[in-house]
């Protein structure tokens, strides 16, 4: 370990507060270390970190934009869906009304038909009855006149 003693000249006293050429040399060393670390550590790592930060912020902005787009599309589609539902509802209501009307029309037609048939039948019955009655009346008249003639003849 004697090589560490570069020269065997008169060694200074030493002491805690012994300022000597160590000071400027250490300053130079720290400055050199600063330049070394700047090119080995601070610049490359800073570049990577800042690139990543940029990447993250652009990705975030991109994602936000996409999210807004998705939300817009979603609102659009919801609107369309609501329109479709509404038109379906109206179609259903219309169809129901149509069916109802048709049903009622059919009922009415059937009723009127039935009424008319009934009326016709009634009228025919009436006519026939009338005819029968008048025939009967004629018969009665004839018979009564015959009775009268017979009676007259007897007396």
């Amino acid at each position, binding site marked *: 370990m004697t090589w560490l003693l570069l020269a065997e000249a008169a060694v200074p006293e*030493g002491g805690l507060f012994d300022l000597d050429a160590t000071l400027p040399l250490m300053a130079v060393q720290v400055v050199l270390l600063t330049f070394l670390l700047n090119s080995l550590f601070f610049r490359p790592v800073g570049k990577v970190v800042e690139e990543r930060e940029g990447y993250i912020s652009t990705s975030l902005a991109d994602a936000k934009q996409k999210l807004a787009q998705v939300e817009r599309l979603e609102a659009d589609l919801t609107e369309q869906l609501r329109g479709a539902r509404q038109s379906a509802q109206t179609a259903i209501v219309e169809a129901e009304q149509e069916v109802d009307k048709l049903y009622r029309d059919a009922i009415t037609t059937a009723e009127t038909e039935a009424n008319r048939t009934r009326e016709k039948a009634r009228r025919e019955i009436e006519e026939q009855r009338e005819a029968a009655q008048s025939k009967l009346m004629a018969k009665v008249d004839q018979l009564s006149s015959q009775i009268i003639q017979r009676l007259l003849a007897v007396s």
Partner: protein
Amino acid sequence: MALLPLSLPFAELEVGHHLYWQIGNLNLHGQVFLSSWILIGALLALVVVGTRKLDRDPRGVQNLLEFMWDYLRDLARDQIGEKYYRDWLPFIGTLFLFIFVSNWGGALIPWKIIELPEGELGAPTADINTTVAMALLVSLAYFYAGLSRKGLRFFELYVEPTPIMLPFKIIEEFTKPLSLSFRLFGNILADELAVGVLVYLVPLIVPLPVMLLGLFTSAIQALIFATLAAFYIGEGLHESH
């Protein structure tokens, strides 16, 4: 030591002894450089391994590095502001990482295994030279930031809000590096000494809570130094009008 029947290999206290390297007529504290090189090497190895394959989906060490980067960016951005923190992030971040690695490395690595002819290895931040060097760099950075940003109008901050503040502000320029360096130096050295004394007295289990506390204060000191450095630089850049 004479009182102890047997000398424990891991429990010796040495304060103020340095391994001197002499270049010309300059003296260097060798142990500080040795441990700092080991720790800087470890830090650089981690960084190199972690940044070898950087991906948008981080995996492995990249996660740790990105966590560190994010932490340091938040620290610098909070103190310096959105506009200028990018220029100063490497400096603040390097201060934090170097101090943090030094403090924790000094506390966690069993340096005593490596024997030096003089002095002992330890946290580089437990040497006053290191902390003063960094504190002076912070002051330089503060003046550089202010002057390059505002020119001579930078000195207006000495007379704001009133010119009465002028002497205090001038004193502050000296107390800033002084407090920065002594806070770090004192805390780390005190932690090392407290652990050292406890290990010297009771080698087992008892020093553990103090060691954990030391790790905590070490991390806090790194944060304080980096935060204050960023705050001073932010103050220099601050636009008051």
